[in-house]
């Protein structure tokens, strides 16, 4: 019961923020909405007992990536989106798209009978130290590769954002 209530609250918060992201015209508002989405998602992870993932989500996603987004929005001084004649029908199109897209997605994800399994509150599959073991033993190669990936991304970002040969 409690599980369901908590899930509805956090789930509703998440959805509301996501829809708000679509409805806002100024990008900074959208960015803040997205931060709310991430936060509520972290809480939902906690509901499922995935502490590691939720903390990592808060730290990296909400704490680093979104900060970067906000930083860039401020840097570029992005203003409101313009109102074009096409903007009138966009909400309608968006609603239609959303409904159909979510319907399709729901159907695909839930048609399998296994998905009627039940999750209990805070149920973490396995001991917590298992995470470390998986990360540094079974998935060591992807781990090392992603570190290289980050290095490359840093270099790429530095090069791309430079002011040209002046």
């Amino acid at each position, binding site marked *: 019961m409690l599980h369901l209530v908590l899930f509805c609250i956090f789930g509703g918060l998440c959805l509301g923020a996501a829809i708000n992201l679509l409805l806002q015209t100024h990008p900074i508002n959208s960015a803040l909405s997205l931060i709310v989405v991430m936060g509520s998602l972290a809480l939902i992870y906690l509901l499922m007992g995935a502490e590691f993932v939720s903390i990592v989500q808060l730290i990296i996603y909400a704490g680093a990536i979104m900060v970067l987004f906000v930083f860039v929005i401020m840097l570029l001084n992005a203003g409101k989106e313009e109102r074009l004649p096409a903007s009138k029908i966009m909400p309608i199109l968006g609603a239609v798209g959303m409904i159909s897209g979510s319907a*399709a*997605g729901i*159907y*695909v994800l839930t*048609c399998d009978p296994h998905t009627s399994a039940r999750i209990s509150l805070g149920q973490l599959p396995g001991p917590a130290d298992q995470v470390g073991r998986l990360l540094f033993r079974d998935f060591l190669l992807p781990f090392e590769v992603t570190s290289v990936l980050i290095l490359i991304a840093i270099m790429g970002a530095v090069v791309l954002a430079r002011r040209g040969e002046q």
Partner: protein
Amino acid sequence: MNLYLWSIPLLPLTGAAINGLFGRRFSNKLVATVALFFTAASFGMAICAASRLLGSNMLSIIELHGTWFRAGTLTVEYGFLLDHLSLVMMLVVTGVGFLIHVYSVAYMSHEGGYYRYFCYLNLFMFFMLTLVLANNYLLMFVGWEGVGLASYLLIGFFFVKDSAANAGKKAFITNRVGDFGFLIALFLLIQHFGSVQYHNVFARISQMPVEAHAGLLTAIGLLMLVGACGKSAQIPLYVWLPDAMEGPTPVSALIHAATMVTAGVYMVCRSNAVFSRAPIALLAVAIIGALTAFFAATIGITQTDIKRVLAYSTVSQLGYMFMAAGVAAYSAAIFHLMTHAFFKALLFLAAGSVIHGIGGEQDMRKMGGLRKYMPITFWTMLIATIAISGIPPLAGFYSKDEILWQAFSSPHGHWIFWLIGAVTAFMTSFYMFRLIFMTFTGDYRGAHGEAQVGHAAHTDTAHGQVADKEHAAHTHAVPMDAHGHGDPHESPWLMLAPLCLLAALSICGGWIGIGGRFERFLEPVMRPPQVETAARFDTSVLANDQQRRMIAMMQAAQSDEAGQMPTAGEAKHENEHAKGTEEALMFISVVIAFAGLGLAYLLYVKRRDLPAKIATSLNGLYTTVLNKYYVDEIYGAAVIQPIIRFSTSALWKGVDVGLIDGTVNGSAHATQDASQVLRQQQSGSIRSYAAWVAAGAGFVVLYMIWTGIR
């Protein structure tokens, strides 16, 4: 007994190949030597083969050299047949051909393209010999088409002249119209008899009854007649022969007098089995022959170009041969073919000598009095004229008289044919002697030394005021030599020797026909094959056993022939009363010949003013005849212009440009338009790319849902 028949056509072909491929670098002497050598060799082989055939007791010899092709049940071989008919034709072609080659050596010595001329001439000999020596209709057709090709090449020899090129085209196209009929006849033969070999076809035809009304054989006969009309210049396909005089004179002599135009007559006589059983077709042959003879003779009276007169004379004499074939007197037709080859070739060569002697002039109104300048030419041409007029004892008398007698007395003949023939003989005698008198007697009306053309025109008394109505085309000059002309002179001996030989043949050539000997000689060919016994066929040169068996089968089939067809010869021998009639008619024809001579003498020697008066008094009629009855103009308006218009509007603009180009261009345009549409996908807008990605992803999802549902 191997006669090496294959060598007779192939030797000239070798000569043509050598001259054609390498002749450009040869000197004139070498070209002439090559050409003459191969032609003489062919003539020699022909004489050998002829003497061996006559010396043996066989009536025909067939040589088979392998299969050309097989299509279903039809097998066509490379086969050569030598029987009495092809023997006559072969000797005429090689003999007269060789003499004309000798003549051409001197005649064409100043012209360009010497090697080309002899190459084409040898090529013509090859095709003509293939035509006469073939043992099946398809090989004959190869020769048939080939002589048409050689004729085109040689008529248009001076191809830089528009009129020559057009004349060549006209000849070839008119021939093709005739060939169409011949081809359909061939198809009918293949369809109904399953073979094109003479022996097969004639053996099967000889078992069919005489057709009382139009049937298969009539159709075949009429279609073959169409082909023969095209090749032998009969009505309605004769229009190419007068224009063919654009070619060099030896070409006119060989091709359009002695050999190629006789191919139609040969074909009709070879197919006598067909015609003897199809009286309607036979009647058509006779009518066309008679009409053509009369019609062409009337035109010949008015022409002033020396070669044109001879051209219409050829058409007229060919009409005689067709008339003879049309009354089932096939051997008389071949006899006249032989004698005509002699004196017509002689006439053309002598005319060439005249033209050569006076520096290229062909208009008779500008000639005259050439007798003292060119005596040998005069005497030989006179001999030929006497021969063609039918005055005994020269060659033309025997053959023409035989035709007139058969036209009168044959079971298929009628006295109207005789009457038309007699009137035409009168006209023939008249216009030929007119030619002699205008050319060789009186004063020289042409240019002496340096050309004084105006002077020549005034002394022309023959056709004074009507001269303006002449077509300018009649007086074209052959592009001739550079040697400046003084007075007219005699030709070199290399040109005169063939003239003398042909003159001798014109005198003696008819004597082998006396007493019906020629007819008996050709009788085995002109009857259906049942008369010959098995022993008469020589099968030793057959290629394989299968063909031996085939010949044996044919011989077996012939032995139970039912009924003979009456040929023209039988009627004559039985009737005593006919003898008296024959002699009376003979006397009448001699009188007619002399009457023509007398009238020509009157109009062109004694009273030179009369022709002009007669012409003006018959003004309308005269102009029509002078303009060849406007036949060319009628053909042009009725046939050629509509075809050209149809081709331009429907075939060219409609089909070629509209349909074919349209399809090709249209497919290109369609591709372009399609690509224009597809190109829109590559807009520069990022959001449209995003939309495409999303659409693709959505499609994948839908697919997964769909497979999930199933």
